[in-house]
């Protein structure tokens, strides 16, 4: 792309990143960067964040080896990093606690957030309750329906949830609405962006708040198997859980970093969120990165069974890792992800988030490619409680009206792995 020629390297990963936002937000971004950079070298901030991680989130999260699941992964050893066991049920809390503490430091009293699967919204509502901040969460109407449980959770936690009816009524439109709110209320409000995209410093800052995932996991794998894994696998929506687990391994050149995007109904179908298969570099939501777009530069709507991966753009550092060859990205279809969802549930008693199931499906493929000597570290970014309704519908366990369907009912597929 041409845009790299004249742009400063400031806030960039290779040519990707930058700050493509209305001027009105620049002072807030400058303030955020300044407060954040000071905080991370301030023992008081670092100590407070570590205390919360330990006593509130429940860090360090454990790793779990899953041999029965691994039988379906070419016999490779498969180790899960259990971010699903964090308080609120996903990795999202790592970033949110950091940003909520920064909000306090900036003297702001209100936080807003976008959410797709609802996990980031729940985490933000949780941190707001903990620290006494007002909280508004924007969520696409379609996502409020498929993640209804999380809408209720956020409201129980005292947050206001605003259903967004624009555009595709999913995550992208929730981000637009959050930006609009932020421009109008930036004096009192911090936008707790939930992933590693957006204008600088968000991609770098959010990554650093999640970096703890990889720092812990690297040591835990060394302790368990006595060597580094052959590959680290994660699902990639905006890319925060993936950057979090990848980052500590970037200098370990022998370790492959593999991200899995939502392949939806298949990349050929056009109904997917495989930005690295079908997107091209462009600007969306403040960052220069890969964007699904038409020839006029209009954003193309994404599709995925997973609300958290249903986003037409991706964090700029992933674009850089792709172009530099350090990481690889592959699509996983809805069907493959749901098969992995079912398989982990039935073989290991762990119900994964549908987002994370994309990484599990990736492990099934990569394990078969690498064979029984391989060690795979998979980021289990979240738990599947929020997805029970979607999965039950997918597997025909409930009727259209939500009533249970018993195995001898006509049409019930059970939860077979052959789906």
């Amino acid at each position, binding site marked *: 792309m041409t845009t790299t020629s004249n742009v400063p390297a400031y806030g960039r990963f290779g040519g990707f990143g930058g700050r493509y936002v*209305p001027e009105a937000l620049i002072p807030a971004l400058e303030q955020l960067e300044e407060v954040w950079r000071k905080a991370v070298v301030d023992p008081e901030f670092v100590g407070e964040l570590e205390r919360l991680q330990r006593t509130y989130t429940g860090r360090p999260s454990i790793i779990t080896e899953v041999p029965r699941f691994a039988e379906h992964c070419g016999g490779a050893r498969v180790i899960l990093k259990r971010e699903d066991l964090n308080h609120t049920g996903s990795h999202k809390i790592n970033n949110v606690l950091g940003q909520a503490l920064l909000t306090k430091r900036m003297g702001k009293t209100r936080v807003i957030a976008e959410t797709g699967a609802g996990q980031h919204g729940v985490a933000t509502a949780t941190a707001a309750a903990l620290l006494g901040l007002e909280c508004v969460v924007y969520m696409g109407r379609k996502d409020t329906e498929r993640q209804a449980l999380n809408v209720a959770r956020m409201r129980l936690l005292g947050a206001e949830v605003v259903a967004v009816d624009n555009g595709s009524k999913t995550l992208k439109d929730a981000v637009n609405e959050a930006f609009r709110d932020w421009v109008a209320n930036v004096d009192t409000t911090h936008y707790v962006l939930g992933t590693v995209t957006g204008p600088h410093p968000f991609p770098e800052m959010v990554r650093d708040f999640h970096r703890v995932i990889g720092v812990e996991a690297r040591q835990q794998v060394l302790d368990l198997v006595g060597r580094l894994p052959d590959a680290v696998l994660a699902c990639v929506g905006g890319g925060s859980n993936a950057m979090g687990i990848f980052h500590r391994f970037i200098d370990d050149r022998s370790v492959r970093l593999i991200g899995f995007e939502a392949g939806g109904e298949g990349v050929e179908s056009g109904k997917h969120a495989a930005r690295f298969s079908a997107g091209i570099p462009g600007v969306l939501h403040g960052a220069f990165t890969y964007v699904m777009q038409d020839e006029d530069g209009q954003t193309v709507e994404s599709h995925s069974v997973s609300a958290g991966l249903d986003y037409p753009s991706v964090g700029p550092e992933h674009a850089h890792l792709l172009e530099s060859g350090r990481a690889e990205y592959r699509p996983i279809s809805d069907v493959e992800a749901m098969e992995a969802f079912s398989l982990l549930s039935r073989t290991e008693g762990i119900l994964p988030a549908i987002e994370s199931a994309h990484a599990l499906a990736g492990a099934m493929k990569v394990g078969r490619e690498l064979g029984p000597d391989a060690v795979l570290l998979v980021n289990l970014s979240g738990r599947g409680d929020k997805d029970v309704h979607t999965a039950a519908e997918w597997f025909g366990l409930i009727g259209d009206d939500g009533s249970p369907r018993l195995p001898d009912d006509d049409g019930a597929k059970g939860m077979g792995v052959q789906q």
Partner: protein
Amino acid sequence: MSVATIIEKCRADDRAALIGYLPVGFPSVEGSIAAMKVLVESGVDIIEIGVPYSDPVMDGPVIQDAAVRALAAGVHLTDIFTAAREVSAAGAGALVMTYWNPVLRYGVERFAADLAAAGGAGLITPDLIPDEAGDWIAAADAHGLDKVFLVAPSSTPERLEAVTSQCRGFVYATAVMGVTGARASVGEAADALVSRTREHTDLPVCVGLGVSTGDQAAQVGRYADGVIVGSALVRCLTEADSDEQGLEALGSLARELADGVRRGRS
């Protein structure tokens, strides 16, 4: 031709310039161009030709709605070149207002060349700050196009300096912190921002966001070099029962605004 020349002429008449925004492609490409011509006939000096975009983070509901409908009706980026040609032929300045990705996708240099060839004066870029605009600044300079960047009530003196030093044509001062949309009052923030901006530049400073009536245009025209009106005009078209009725409402609001900037300083 830079729109600065038009604003200078208005200044010589002791009035602010009137700048009207309409998105190309609503209700149709021809319909939007007809509407732009109505604005010109009704006393609007500069037309801001809007590029409908799928993710307009600086826009409120009225302009979002028009953009969605224009895109659904099949507008393409290249339609703005047609609009620019017709607007400048009608005797008004033709500035294009666009989010950055459509230009990036088209190719920055190619876009600048085609816009200049169509008689367009330049670009207003709501989500492109000068710090990220190296390619655009080079292309605009090569083709003699206006570069209108925005300043906001939140802008620090450092930002005002950095932004105004890269502008050509005028500086766009956003009256309020927020998105486009008519507001009951434009507020004191705008007046203060214009004064602060003038400490850094001799360029004209035009005020947008929230202006919807002749009285507001008169009031803003007292301290600003130009008054920018968007949502209020767009709403004449989106809320009309028929295209003819829309053009009628548009013409009458434009005349009211044109009267406003003319009586503002008398």
